[in-house]
């Protein structure tokens, strides 16, 4: 426990040391992401009244929507369509702020607090959907593992505790992965720029292709993992359907 606490302190200290970003600066970048997103969506909305989309931005958003729809329906199952808005929001916010990080010294996804907030929203939404589809008791009995005889109650309790811990760790893993990739990318560019400082060559610029790949992959991973968590808690009704289908 001491170790974890100390690592958190070191992390916060290193974050404070690396960039002197205040809460106002943080909100500036978050606002920038929101402004860019709303501008793009307002542009994409221009051609909605026509029969076919002639607006290039509308076409691009249509492709993105199809991609997210494939992701949701492919991962969650036939009832995955109703989770598209949430997943698409995550994808767009994360992708936009990742791309913003290529041009600006700081970006919302490069700060741990923004990522943790997003991970809390994602995991909280997963719990909400689980309770909505299985009921409160059904959702929490889902954590207790398979139904065991009465003698095995200690084991069921242990499984329950471990499942709850793993549920909490989902927040940590989602946020740390995004933070580590984006923040680490910035740190790597800074370190490589220092290498070429004496000859005035920005060596860190050669990392840009990798960083562009990271932008897409991290946005995809966050939405994909949210989809997987959703499919884990909402698969019950479907499971019975599959069983009966298999029995036929």
């Amino acid at each position: 426990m001491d170790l974890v606490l100390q690592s958190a302190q070191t992390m916060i200290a290193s974050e404070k040391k690396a960039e002197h970003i205040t809460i106002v600066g943080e909100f500036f970048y978050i606002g920038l992401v929101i402004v860019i997103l709303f501008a793009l969506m307002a542009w994409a909305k221009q051609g909605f009244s026509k029969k076919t989309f002639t607006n290039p931005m509308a076409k691009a958003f249509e492709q993105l929507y199809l991609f997210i729809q494939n992701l949701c329906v492919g991962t969650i199952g036939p009832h995955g369509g109703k989770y598209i808005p949430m997943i698409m929001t995550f994808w767009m916010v994360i992708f936009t702020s990742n791309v913003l990080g290529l041009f600006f010294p700081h970006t919302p996804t490069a700060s741990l607090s923004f990522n943790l907030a997003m991970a809390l929203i994602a995991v909280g939404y997963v719990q909400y959907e689980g309770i909505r589809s299985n009921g409160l008791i059904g959702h929490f009995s889902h954590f207790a593992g398979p139904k065991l005889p009465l003698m095995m109650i200690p084991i069921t309790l242990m499984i329950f505790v471990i499942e709850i811990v793993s549920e909490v760790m989902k927040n940590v893993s989602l946020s740390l992965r995004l933070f580590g990739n984006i923040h680490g990318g910035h740190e790597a560019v800074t370190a490589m720029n220092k290498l070429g400082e004496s000859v005035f060559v920005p060596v860190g610029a050669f990392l840009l292709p990798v960083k562009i790949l990271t932008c897409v992959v991290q946005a995809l991973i966050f939405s994909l993992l949210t989809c997987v968590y959703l499919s884990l808690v909402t698969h019950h009704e479907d499971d019975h359907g599959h069983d009966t289908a298999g029995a036929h």
Partner: protein
Amino acid sequence: MQGSVFGIGLGLAALGVGIGLGLIGYGAMQGMARQPEAIGKLQVNMLIALAFVELVFLLTVFLAPAAVNVGIQTVAK
């Protein structure tokens, strides 16, 4: 001293994670070559596995400074 310990630890972590990522890529490539129609499913699963392996390295990066600090403190005591 502290920096070198940190560096060796990071190198070892990167080595292990590199091997893990390579194994995942190897398996996914083989699967894709054998069954091109399953590329979509394979890619998604491959990305999930890649993310989990990558997380191990990131956790190492975040925990290593603290671990080195605690180790030095215990040695000093």
